[in-house]
């Protein structure tokens, strides 16, 4: 029922039926205004439930928004703002909210208490996955995901400030205003759509004006300060180390990202998060229409919505009376005020029952009456809304995110924050246990002024006149008597579950939580935890401070993975690195494959080719018989310069680089300090104190980090500088018998075999551009790598490919590259996979014993030079038409293919068009001593079982004559 003319309205739907709402109000307010109290079904027992709170702590009124791919479950109707065309659906009910088939669970409740699942579904174990879990999952739980990819957009962002004020109620507003006026750089974040906190929900004056008018005035002042940033609809979700805070913003603009997850870094913060009301445990306290008293008042005062026509109030503290008074003043019938305290003096023109309590409620899908025990008798009061207040809990959550524990205050029967629980965070207002407006305003201003002064500003405290009133409470947790008394409404936990937990010796609050699931729902027990531990304390006779709280953990409100991972989908998942030849390669219809962050061509298909193998075999032929061109820019290139450049390389490579002549290239091996191979590559000496080294594509970042580690941490005595030049140079391999002919078509000065012998390097001119030429080979053929500054890369690639075609060759991709190097027994990270040593690879001779290098000491450990280790061999398929596969395991010819008989594994395999045979590289126990032996290769995954002959890993041109030309 609306108490005032709503003016402009919007129309949304609830379960398909149109509902009128007022812009700015939450869906829960609009539903109440339209007499809809039943908003959802509960998690476990499918009990009918209505809205209980008026904030983000709402346990009951969870709804699904939108449909299809845009469907978003478990949205709290108390924070979801109405808008035209918004589609809202109740959840956890079938076939309809009013007639829910699984409400049968409620009848079974005597069997479904705490621990039920643990005890019942233990046997037989195999039934769990197939039967129990699917059935339980269908019956229990909250909203459902659509299973479709959502097109909604999310954001994350960073913000920095001197002072973060968390919450914009009376304390927060005064904190922001005081610090803002002093010149402090302030962020004021509040989770509501409108700032003002409790002042928007109360009937009271501040500075001689209605509180809401004072709020509007303060907000105008704050907006006028350039050093103050207002962040409405933003919930601070966590407090982290070194002044970092997480915050979730619900973005209101249409077409904008749905939510933004902020990381706010603040020198200081003030928590002004207010307080949350708690319920009382009495029988059937969960019917739609039973709400927290402060929430009932909020719906009336702020949104002009009466949650009922005949309202009763039940509480144990002064604040409950305020609800009755405000509602009566708004013209709503108060059917009764029940205060559990016997000695309270009240004058009111509605029935007051001091020393009374609510002992029963009635109404199937909504409250119709309550039973009140009073002065030894009981009476039934007809009511459609019961406002309950068990007292207020300061919102201490954020102060506990770094292991802090709150302390108990008897006078307000609540936990308050322990000072300095979060470095740099102060606390002010209701979240610090101050439950009256004047005190909140004063504490907010004073705390902010002190912080401003600490930060070097001059701050003044100017306080508005406001209401100061005492808050008295007598603790009341559970009303004696039969019937289920709900504590955690979201997870369907009752006082009986807590009693069972204590009875079964789960007496620690942390055990009770896990046994009953108390506080483990998305609301994390915001309304219920203190009630639950008080009930436990009563049962165990230990008292509340001794019982303590469970651990408060971030986030304060649920944060969607979509918001936390915003920007990380699709192309945002990882950077894409593109070669200069990328566009020409894609235009040639080459399928691209990922190599680290790079994209490289798999093969270049020609018209009429139907399989990758055809293309690959042809491209291998280019290199073996004519000339092939391949973009190798993705290999890491590191420039090493300085008086001690050679010494640094001697330290990071196993072999000596200091003896390398100018204008020459040498193959090099790098170890990790534990003796295993990290990477291989080449070092080229461009000058006495100048080298450029290459790394494999995937390990470039790791090698750069390793080089910096060696230079800065292990050998700061060496004067050498390392710098990545990978992106500056576009580099192309030109391989094959006609490589030199091809190069001479693009080089300014012709080269010959005499000037450019195997492993030579130097500077060349290409159309007037200075480039570099390296005579190195990863194919076993006469081969060069030619490098030009990246701006010329695409142009050079196109010309090399065009010229190669006239010579009977062309471009080749990763597949052909792989075949060429396997035929030659050359290594990649398939072999250098982090568990192999130089010894395993047959490269022990490359580890110089004459000098110290990273990994040398550890590589000489006896276990790493044991001949029985799995060591590199070649494999040649011996059965006609049977392939070898990478990942397959090796066994003695007649052994059973079981783990105990495992002799090794295949790391690389291919069909060699050059040798017309399947080849493999493998690690085999005692491998080099077994050349000539026929062994069994089994690939359990692909179902391959075949024989192969062990051989030397260099299959083709073992003398290496072709590369030397």
């Amino acid at each position, binding site marked *: 029922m609306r108490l005032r003319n709503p003016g402009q309205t919007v129309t949304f739907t609830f379960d398909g039926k149109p509902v009128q709402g007022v812009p700015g109000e939450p869906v829960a307010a609009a539903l109440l205004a339209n007499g809809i109290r039943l908003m959802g079904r509960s998690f476990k027992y499918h009990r009918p439930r209505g809205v209980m709170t008026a904030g983000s702590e709402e346990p009951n009124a969870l709804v699904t928004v939108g449909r299809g791919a845009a469907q978003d479950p478990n949205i709290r109707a108390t924070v979801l703002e109405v808008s035209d065309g918004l589609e809202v659906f109740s959840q956890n009910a079938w076939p309809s909210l009013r007639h829910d088939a699984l409400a049968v669970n409620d009848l079974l409740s005597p069997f479904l208490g705490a621990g039920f699942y643990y005890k019942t579904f233990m046997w037989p174990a195999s039934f769990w996955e197939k039967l129990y879990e699917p059935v339980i999952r269908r019956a229990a739980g909250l909203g459902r995901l659509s299973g479709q990819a959502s097109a909604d957009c999310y*954001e994350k962002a960073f913000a920095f400030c001197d002072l973060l004020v968390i919450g914009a109620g009376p304390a927060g507003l005064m904190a922001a205003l005081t610090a803002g006026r002093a010149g402090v750089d302030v962020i004021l974040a509040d989770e509501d759509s409108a700032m003002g906190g409790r002042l928007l929900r109360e009937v009271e004056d501040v500075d001689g004006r209605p509180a809401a008018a004072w709020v509007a005035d303060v907000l105008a002042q704050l907006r006028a300060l350039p050093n103050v940033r207002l962040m409405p609809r933003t919930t601070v979700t966590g407090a982290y180390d070194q002044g970092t805070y997480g915050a979730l913003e619900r973005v209101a*603009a249409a077409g904008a990202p749905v939510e933004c997850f902020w990381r706010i870094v603040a020198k200081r913060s003030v928590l002004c998060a207010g307080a949350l009301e708690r319920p009382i445990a009495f029988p059937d306290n969960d019917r739609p229409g039973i709400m927290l008293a402060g929430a009932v008042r909020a719906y009336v005062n702020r949104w002009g919505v009466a949650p009922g026509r005949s309202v009763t109030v039940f509480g144990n503290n002064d604040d409950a009376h305020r609800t009755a008074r405000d509602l009566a003043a708004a013209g709503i019938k108060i059917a009764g005020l029940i205060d559990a305290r016997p000695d309270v003096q009240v004058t009111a023109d509605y029935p007051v029952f001091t020393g009374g309590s609510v002992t029963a409620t009635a109404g199937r899908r909504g409250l119709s009456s309550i039973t009140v025990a009073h002065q030894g008798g009981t009476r039934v009061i007809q009511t459609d809304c019961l406002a309950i207040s068990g007292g207020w809990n300061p919102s201490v959550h954020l102060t506990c995110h770094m292991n802090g524990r709150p302390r108990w205050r008897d006078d307000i029967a609540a936990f308050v924050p322990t000072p300095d629980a979060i470095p740099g965070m102060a606390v002010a207002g209701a979240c610090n246990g101050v439950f009256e407006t004047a005190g909140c305003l004063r504490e907010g201003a004073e705390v902010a002024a002190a912080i401003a002064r600490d930060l070097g500003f001059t701050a003044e405290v100017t306080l508005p006149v406001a209401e100061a009133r005492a808050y008295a409470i007598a603790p009341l947790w559970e009303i004696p008597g039969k019937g289920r008394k709900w504590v955690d409404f979201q997870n369907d936990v009752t006082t009986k579950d807590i009693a069972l937990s204590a009875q079964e010796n789960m007496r620690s609050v942390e055990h009770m939580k896990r046994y009953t699931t108390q506080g483990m729902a998305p609301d994390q027990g915001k309304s219920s935890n203190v009630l639950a531990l008080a009930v436990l304390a009563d049962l165990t006779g230990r008292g509340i401070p001794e019982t303590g709280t469970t651990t408060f953990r971030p986030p304060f409100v649920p944060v969607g993975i979509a918001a936390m991972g915003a920007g990380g989908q699709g192309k945002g998942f990882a950077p*894409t*690195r593109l070669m200069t030849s990328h566009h020409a390669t894609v235009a040639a219809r080459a399928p691209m494959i990922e190599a680290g962050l790079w994209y490289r061509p798999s093969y270049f298909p020609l018209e009429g080719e139907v399989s990758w193998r055809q293309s690959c075999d042809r491209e291998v032929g280019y290199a073996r018989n004519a000339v092939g061109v391949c973009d190798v820019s993705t290999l890491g290139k590191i420039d090493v310069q300085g008086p001690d450049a050679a010494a640094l390389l001697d330290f990071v490579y196993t072999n000596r680089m200091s003896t390398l002549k100018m204008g020459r290239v040498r193959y090099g091996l790098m170890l990790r300090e534990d003796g295993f191979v990290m990477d291989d590559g080449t070092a080229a000496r461009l000058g006495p104190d100048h080298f450029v080294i290459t790394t494999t594509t995937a390990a470039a970042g790791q090698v750069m980090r390793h080089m910096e580690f060696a230079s800065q941490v292990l050998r700061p005595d060496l004067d050498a500088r390392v710098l990545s030049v990978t992106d500056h140079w576009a580099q192309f391999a030109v391989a094959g018998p006609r490589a030199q002919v091809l190069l001479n078509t*693009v080089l300014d000065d012709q080269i010959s075999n005499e000037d450019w012998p195997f492993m030579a390097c130097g500077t060349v001119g290409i159309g007037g551009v200075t480039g570099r030429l390296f005579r190195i080979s990863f194919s076993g053929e006469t081969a060069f790598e030619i490098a030009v500054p*990246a701006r010329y890369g695409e142009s*050079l690639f196109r*010309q090399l490919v065009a010229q190669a075609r006239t010579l009977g060759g062309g471009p080749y991709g990763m597949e052909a590259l792989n075949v060429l190097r396997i035929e030659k027994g050359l290594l990649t990270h398939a072999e250098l996979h982090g568990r192999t040593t130089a010894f395993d690879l047959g490269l022990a001779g490359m580890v110089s014993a004459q000098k110290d290098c990273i990994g040398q000491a550890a590589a000489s450990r006896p276990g790493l030079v044991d001949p029985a280790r799995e060591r590199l061999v070649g494999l040649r398929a011996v059965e006609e038409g049977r392939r070898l596969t990478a990942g397959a395991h090796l066994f003695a010819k007649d052994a059973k293919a079981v783990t105990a008989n495992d002799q090794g594994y295949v790391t690389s395999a291919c069909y060699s068009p050059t040798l017309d045979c399947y080849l493999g590289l493998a690690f085999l126990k005692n491998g080099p001593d077994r050349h000539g032996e026929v062994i069994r290769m089994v690939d359990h995954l692909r179902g391959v079982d075949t024989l192969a002959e062990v051989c030397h890993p260099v299959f083709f041109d073992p003398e290496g004559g072709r590369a030397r030309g």
Partner: protein
Amino acid sequence: MARLIALGAFGDLLPLQVGDVTCTEVVRETLFSVAPYRGQQKAVSAGLKTQLGLTLPAVGRRRAAGDVICQWIGHDAWIVSAPVTLDGLAAVTDQSDGYATLEITGASVEAVLARLVPLDLRSATFKVNHTARSLLGHLPVSITRTGPQAFEVMVMRSMAASLVHDLQEAMTGVAARGSA
């Protein structure tokens, strides 16, 4: 004989405008990194003064003399936009094609960068000619304030398209909020 054509780092991805923010390519013909050898920082600075008319700026700063800039780019390293000869004093490395550089400008530029860069870029703390190495999304970048509403972003050249992609997403999100 080859005839090589030079191409820009961003292809046709720039200029890009979304809302009130614009990205344009910054072209510098030459870039050389300068990493002074031990104890040579003063001598390097003097060499730069003689050859280019500017000295090495402090850590986190950029300095300009006419069109020539000298900018700190990391641990004991600077970058200059003109050739220099510093034999025996510093490792000098041609990086002319190693980076893709763009300038991003507009009223909402700080809001756009706040979506991607974990840095305090407020004008009071990060002033004109302040420069930092950081991350933009997942990309390692050098970021420099060039004006009240203008920043320059340098990224490894091979990542140019990713830089534009990430900025475009952030620009779109900020623009969709209207004036926020």
